[in-house]
């Protein structure tokens, strides 16, 4: 089903999204990938505050290429989400509602998503040029020294994504492959 949703995402909307839905996201989302996740995780372990409140928010696993003059951002497609699996449950427990990336998630993440009513979206990997057109504003809000891995606050319009894992743990990567498998 095609749906238009806004970010941040409230609990009710997140729970209504089903594995296989094609969504267009409009609103504010945040970027973070490997190095930023490591830092956020270490901050939480030390009892420090995160650079932004993750509650009801969406994290886009993405590190852009540099912006050319007059553009908000460079190429901006998803990176592999699996690498963030170690850190994701801690953020989900704090109310993170959505993650955008590509690639499989491990069971610890799925369990935490079910517990917290969160959604995992895939954007099309390797489509960084077209996806950058949906990003209207971009601002580094933390960890500037990490370069492409800094945390950015983005404003996106009709950003296309597919619900891969919903809040009940249904995983499109598993179900869709079986549908087209021929032995």
């Amino acid at each position, binding site marked *: 089903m095609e749906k238009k949703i806004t970010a941040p995402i409230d609990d009710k909307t997140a729970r209504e999204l089903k594995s296989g839905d*094609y969504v267009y996201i409009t609103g504010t989302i945040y970027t973070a990938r490997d*190095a930023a996740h490591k830092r956020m995780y270490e901050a939480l372990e030390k009892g420090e505050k995160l650079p932004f409140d993750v509650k009801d928010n969406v994290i886009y696993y*993405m*590190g*852009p*290429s*540099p*912006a*050319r003059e007059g*553009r908000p951002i*460079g*190429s*901006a*497609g998803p*990176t*592999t989400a*699996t690498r963030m699996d170690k850190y994701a449950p801690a953020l989900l427990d704090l109310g993170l509602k959505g993650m955008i990336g*590509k*690639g*499989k998630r491990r069971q610890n993440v799925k369990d935490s998503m079910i517990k917290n009513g969160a959604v995992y979206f*895939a954007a*099309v*990997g*390797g*489509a*960084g*040029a*077209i*996806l*950058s*057109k949906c990003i209207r504003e971009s601002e580094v809000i933390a960890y500037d020294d*990490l*370069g*492409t*891995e800094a945390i950015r606050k983005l404003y996106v319009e009709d950003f*296309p994504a*597919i619900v*891969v894992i919903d809040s009940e743990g249904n995983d*499109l*990567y598993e*179900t*869709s*492959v*079986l*549908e*087209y*498998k*021929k*032995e």
Partner: protein
Amino acid sequence: MREIEVREITENIKEMCIEAVHFLTDDMKEALLSAKKSEESPLGRKILEQLEENLAIAGEDMIPICQDTGMAVIFLEIGQDVHFTGGSLKDAINEGVRQGYTEGFLRKSVVSDPIIRENTGDNTPAVIHYDIVPGDKVRITVAPKGFGSENMSRIYMLKPADGIEGVKEAILSAVREAGPNACPPMVVGVGIGGTFEKCAYLAKKALTRPVNERSKTEYVAKLEEEMLDKINRSGIGPGGLGGSTTAFAVNIETYATHIAGLPVAVNICCHVNRHAVREL
């Protein structure tokens, strides 16, 4: 003896880095277009259309096809009658990468040490493979490699008794494990034979062969076709979201090996299988 100034190498590598991340070779473009016609899944077709549009935007607006503009892998085939002048060849290559990634607005994705992990800020150093060949020409291949698919690549030290069936299972298991993480439709580069490092090199090199060109060795060409068919029956599909287009090609290179071994390397590349080639 032919003299070549190293700054000519720098200039070419700079241009080739920028070219490779914005434009795919014709064989890759064709593979994408024909896949759109044969893909069985409606969502798969939608993803392939998005990739086609992405490619057009990349070239028109000079936005890299993928934000992961890779680690620069460079193959240099140097004619043995060439003499480089004006400085170190290696420094000249890295200077080309530095200029290309900085002036071309490409992402700097390289850290100086695998454990300490500080970004070098200019995407150097490159991974350089030199080969000395007869003649007085220099053939440069710049192949920026993204790590979504690189992380899903595998080496298997099979034994002679595993035979061709073992090789097939190794290839299929690497692809199955890679699934959506490697950004399918993928190109599968395979190296069979040699030693531990030689088969990995061959697998990487195989990715630079056009996807519409089969091996000249008959049994290898047959193996390439059989593997492609099996991979496209796996159901993984575009984006790993189900479908009949999981790979565009399986390119296999072979080499002599030891009586006790059968090394197999599977180097997976996403649909952004980039390389620029020039001969000086």
